[in-house]
């Protein structure tokens, strides 16, 4: 193959390419991996959750607001039914975990982290669609630090903290996660937003509030990634509005080592497959040999090849 090397690395894990899905935006058991270099599971909680009543999604300019409410089969069914099948996907699996208390997270991390199908654990401390729990933890630096610390002690796998952009100082929360021992960061989860029902003039979504995703939030994501990287130097899975190979390069430059796609998969499930050759072309156009050569190059003072 004459095209450049699209392999990517994060926390010592090797990926065939730097593209992953955002948690909760792909069911690989239903649709396959679409050419992505890894699969991230929907956030799993201790107990099964039906999710919020409809309306669960509303379209907004260049994006959408969702209020799914962490619908998931619960830890037991996830470990028994899902993980064994996910292990056969042929790509690294990153398991996303949520909860309402540090001990809920810890229980889930211990169980999931012990499963051979899992390559890394992602702590969702940033879901805007549940009343309390994860989002409350992720807006507080101290709670974030403590949660990461506790979860790290439950597993030998890399532990990633997924953060919200809906905070006053995302670099401060990123720093807290780093202090707690996070091996990496995932940025960004959805941005807090709501939709108004244009007919009834009431909040449209069944869950009340919601989370904004899609191309609309791309500049917010780049901002969060850039500053989290500058503050911590940790490897980052960057996401939020990625819709093209060009976007992917910008996210790498801002400091992402892997790049996630969510909402744009809904609009175009063939996107990752089409992005990869274009990504190869762009990498070469920027004079780089590998994906890693581009990671963080937008930072004036950081080495462009900082390794985890």
């Amino acid at each position, binding site marked *: 193959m004459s095209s450049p090397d699209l392999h990517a690395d994060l926390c010592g894990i090797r990926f065939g390419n730097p593209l992953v899905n955002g948690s909760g935006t792909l069911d690989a058991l239903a649709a396959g991996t679409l050419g992505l270099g890894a699969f991230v599971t929907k956030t799993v909680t201790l107990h099964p959750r039906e999710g919020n009543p409809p309306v*669960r999604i509303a379209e907004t300019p260049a994006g959408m607001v969702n209020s799914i409410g962490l619908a998931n089969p619960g830890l037991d069914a996830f470990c028994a039914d899902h993980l064994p099948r996910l292990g056969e996907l042929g790509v690294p699996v990153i398991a996303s975990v949520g909860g309402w208390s540090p001990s809920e997270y810890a229980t889930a991390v211990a169980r999931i982290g012990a499963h051979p199908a899992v390559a890394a654990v992602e702590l969702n401390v940033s879901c805007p669609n549940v009343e309390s729990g994860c989002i409350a933890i992720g807006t507080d630096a101290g709670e974030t630090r403590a949660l990461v610390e506790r979860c790290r002690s439950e597993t030998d796998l890399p532990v990633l903290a997924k953060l919200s952009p809906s905070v006053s100082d995302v670099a401060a929360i990123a720093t807290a996660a780093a202090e707690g021992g996070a091996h990496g960061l995932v940025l960004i989860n959805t941005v807090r937003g709501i939709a108004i029902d244009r007919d009834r003039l009431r909040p449209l979504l069944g869950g009340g509030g919601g989370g904004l995703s899609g191309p609309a939030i791309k500049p917010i994501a780049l901002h969060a990634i850039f500053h989290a990287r500058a503050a911590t130097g940790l490897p980052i899975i960057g996401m939020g509005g990625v819709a093209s190979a060009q976007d992917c390069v910008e996210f790498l430059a801002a400091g992402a080592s892997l790049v996630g796609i969510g909402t744009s998969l809904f609009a175009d499930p063939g996107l990752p497959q089409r992005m990869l050759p274009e990504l190869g072309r762009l990498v070469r156009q920027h004079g780089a040999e590998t994906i890693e050569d581009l990671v963080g190059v937008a930072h004036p003072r950081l080495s462009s090849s900082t390794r985890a």
Partner: protein
Amino acid sequence: MAAVEAVGAYTLLRLGDDGGDTGAPGQFFMLRAEPAPAAAYLPRAVSAAWAGDGELAFLLDVRGAGTRALTEARTVSVVGPLGRGFDLAAGPSILVGGGIGAAILPWLRRRLEQRGDVRTVLGFRSPEHAVCAGIVDPDATVVLDPVLVTEPLARLLPASATVYACGPDRMLEAVAALCAEHDVPCQLAMEAAMACGFGACYGCAVRLDGTWKRLCIEGPVVEAARVLA
């Protein structure tokens, strides 16, 4: 690329069939105007009115930015066929359509006619909307608001036939209840807000078997019993 014509108050969109699988009646496609308009980044779920002879046809109720852009675009992207279509039973059939729900029926009728007698009852809110009855079934029984389709349907029941229905939720519930009452098998093509159409977003939750299920995976066509459960 796309041919567009008015069918009364609705709009017929005919796309060139690129030779891929076009699925079966009741399945759906995710359509998006390209380049994607700012006001309609997500695709729209639409069932084919028919497929074959080199074309894929959709009957659209143009409501908002997404459907309008589809009728104005030079290029439309198509993902599908998706979901589960109708389960074609042997013997006579009764087709029930409400409003734009009729869009899904022309292709279904062509297939069912090979299996037995087909009767069609359609309800619309105005004569302009009823124009499309002609492309569903020239012999259809058509009622206009405030008459409900359940009225002519009730006159056809009981029957040794399978009922296939598509229309607003309220209509589907009434049809399901009527069929249950007469113990007639019934399939419903349902609707829900869909972001992806392939099980990824969990947005299309509908109540099936007493719990929230993804309509794009379990349906859009489901046994009426699952809704009543």
